[in-house]
């Protein structure tokens, strides 16, 4: 036999879905939200986004290249996703050096110290955000007046709706939420501006079968149920379901951060439990904590529980109980 042929075990071909392709889908899914926040905040938002992506990618490249002495992994695009998510968690117009510190914590600490993609316990972008929030509380909660191409007459700066709860009380804050909030929020992180844009991206990921919907739905359901019960008991003290679903980082977190493959459970029921935990912790922080917002903390806390959840929930095996 003159020719030589490949001999290897089955299967002999591969589904056309790579890690890179999955990450590209997440990037595509984030685009509607990025576009909406660009329209609201203008070029300053794009600048933060560009800085964040550039820092994250460069850091991962440098760490793999010079510290780990391994082939670079930036080709899988996961650093781009982290960079985008980090930027969406920052107020637009924030100084570049704060973005850099966020990237160092996200990529350097949360991701690469654990061994890179797939090894990290905590969601990198959220870890970066939480670090910045506790280190630079003033800068992280100074929300600029929307200065982009769409001007909301009712826009006011300084405090988000969630902060209004602590200032005005639950009943008055509830009144500020209308159907309009669904499309555009007032003030807040770049990624919190439009729930509809985020949900459109999430729907794209679900339809492309990049992620399963259960974690996200479980978070929404838990938040809605907990809020409805507390609101029914005392509407003066506790904000309602719609308010809690549409404000802060719930939609962004539930759609894009809690569904991160690496830091969420593998099984369907594990995902439901994970989502319940996030929703419950979030509501406890909002109602009883000193922080107005708790999505990041809720996700990080449940990230820690993932190995346990994975041990408790397995796939249904064929022919076994």
């Amino acid at each position, binding site marked *: 036999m003159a020719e030589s042929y490949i001999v290897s075990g*089955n*299967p002999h071909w591969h589904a056309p879905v790579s890690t890179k392709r999955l990450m590209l889908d997440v990037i595509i899914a984030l685009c509607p939200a990025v576009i909406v926040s660009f329209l609201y905040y203008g070029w300053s938002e794009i600048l933060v986004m560009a800085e964040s992506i550039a820092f994250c990618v460069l850091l991962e490249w440098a760490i793999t290249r010079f510290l780990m002495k391994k082939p670079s992994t930036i080709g899988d695009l996961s650093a781009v996703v982290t960079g985008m998510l980090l930027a969406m968690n920052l107020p637009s117009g924030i100084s570049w050096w704060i973005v850099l510190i966020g990237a160092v914590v996200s990529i350097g600490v949360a991701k690469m110290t654990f061994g890179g993609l797939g090894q990290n316990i905590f969601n990198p972008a959220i870890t970066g955000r939480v670090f910045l929030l506790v280190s630079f509380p003033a800068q992280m909660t100074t929300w600029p007046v929307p200065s982009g191409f769409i001007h909301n007459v009712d826009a006011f700066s300084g405090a988000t709706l969630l902060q209004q709860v602590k200032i005005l009380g639950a009943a008055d804050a509830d009144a500020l939420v209308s159907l309009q909030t669904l499309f555009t929020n007032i003030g807040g992180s770049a990624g919190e501006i439009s729930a509809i844009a985020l949900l459109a991206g999430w729907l794209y990921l679900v339809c492309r079968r990049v992620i399963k919907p259960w974690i996200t739905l479980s978070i929404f359901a838990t938040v809605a149920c907990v809020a409805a019960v507390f609101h029914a008991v005392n509407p003066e003290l506790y904000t309602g379901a719609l308010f809690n679903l549409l404000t802060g980082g719930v939609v962004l977190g539930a759609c894009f951060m809690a569904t991160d493959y*690496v830091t969420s459970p593998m099984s369907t029921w594990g995902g439901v439990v994970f989502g319940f935990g996030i929703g419950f912790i979030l509501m406890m922080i909002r109602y009883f904590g000193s922080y107005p917002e708790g999505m990041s903390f809720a996700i990080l806390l449940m990230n820690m529980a993932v190995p346990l959840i994975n041990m408790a929930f397995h796939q249904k095996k064929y022919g076994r109980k």
Partner: protein
Amino acid sequence: MKKITFSIGGVHPNDCKLAADRPIEVLPIPETLYVSMAQHLGAPAKPVVSVGDKVKTGQVIAEPGGFISAFVHSPASGTVKSIAPRADLAGRMVPHIEIAVEGDEWAEGIDTSDALIAEIPEDRAMMLERIKNCGVVGLGGATFPTHVKLNPAPGSPAAEALLINGAECEPFLTSDYRLMLESPKPILIGASIMQKILGGPKCYICIEDNKPQAIKVMGEALEELGFSNMVVQPLLKKYPQGGEKQLIQAVMRREVGSGALPISVGAVVQNVSTAFAVYEAVQKNKPLITNVLTVTGDCLPVEKQHNYRFRIGMPLSYIASYAGGIPTEAAKIVSGGPMMGRAIANIEAAAVKGSSSLLYLKESTTRRWTESACIRCGRCSEACPMGLEPFLLNRLYKGGLTDELEKNAVQDCIECGCCLYSCPAGIPLLDNVRQAKLQVMGIIRARAAAAKAAAGQANK
């Protein structure tokens, strides 16, 4: 009838049935045939002819080498030239009987006419005997001796359903499809014979909905034959539907326990080609010396794709060159489909009863991906039709944790390839899981042997 499918895992590869419109052609017999003694599951057959013997087509040349084994017959008439080890498609040395072909003169008592014999004999023992004597084995892939499967051990539950597997869920393969289109009645009569042998369970002819023509033709033939207690069951296309356990779950909604046989849930599964072979054996006394094979691939134009009726013992290289030679773009040649087939290391190997294809794959199609880190996406466990967690098994295998591997049911793996097929990081999951399975099966067997020995000691 409502289309159904199995409920755990599975993948949806492009079915690539490129040779579906190519009718079955009969291959001319070459000058020399090499008949393997190991063309069935179980013990190799023992030659009963000597060098220099004259043999006729269909004459027994080897007898079963054990309980699970099968007769082998001469695929042509001629002279036994040698009995010696020869490399099979993986390159392993296996005893072969070499026959110098002089013609195609059939042995006495074999009906070689085309006449359809629809009347089913009454004598169950005679039918089983004929199936055994004609060397019929399962042609769906495992080549398990059919007479053993049709005669469950005493004490087994009664057969409640006979599933005739026409799913042909492997992409590219079209031999079962062509056989269903061209010989629907013999298949149905073969199914009816097996039904009778098993004591009359309900018979389902299971066909995936990517073959509407086959569903139609088989349905019409069934109506004409007027068999009662037999239906054509359409299935939603999903791989690996043709897996025995998956097909049983799809049709009967029952799951075969780990390590148990299908008969434990009242099921017997036989491939459509096996049903055809049973028809020929029982109605025509014709031994299993031919089968249908597809020459296909993504680097072959449709006019060069073929479905051939071959004789066992034909070198694969002969079939390849008759079909127009191996295409230059081919990087891998597979016997079977792209999901579960075996890569051919030796193209000079002889075709066997279970040969189903010569599949040529391009380098870009068959190239393994560069392995990258597991991103814990869970796609492998979503795809696994046995509900296993390949990512976990892979990790346990690397840690050498055989107890944990057994607890996580690595021994249930059916090696369908869904995990590796769907892994976005290109991790060689099945390669490692297969090794882990071998280790654990070895441990389980050793433990059983030790328990048996201990029981023997205690009885003394």
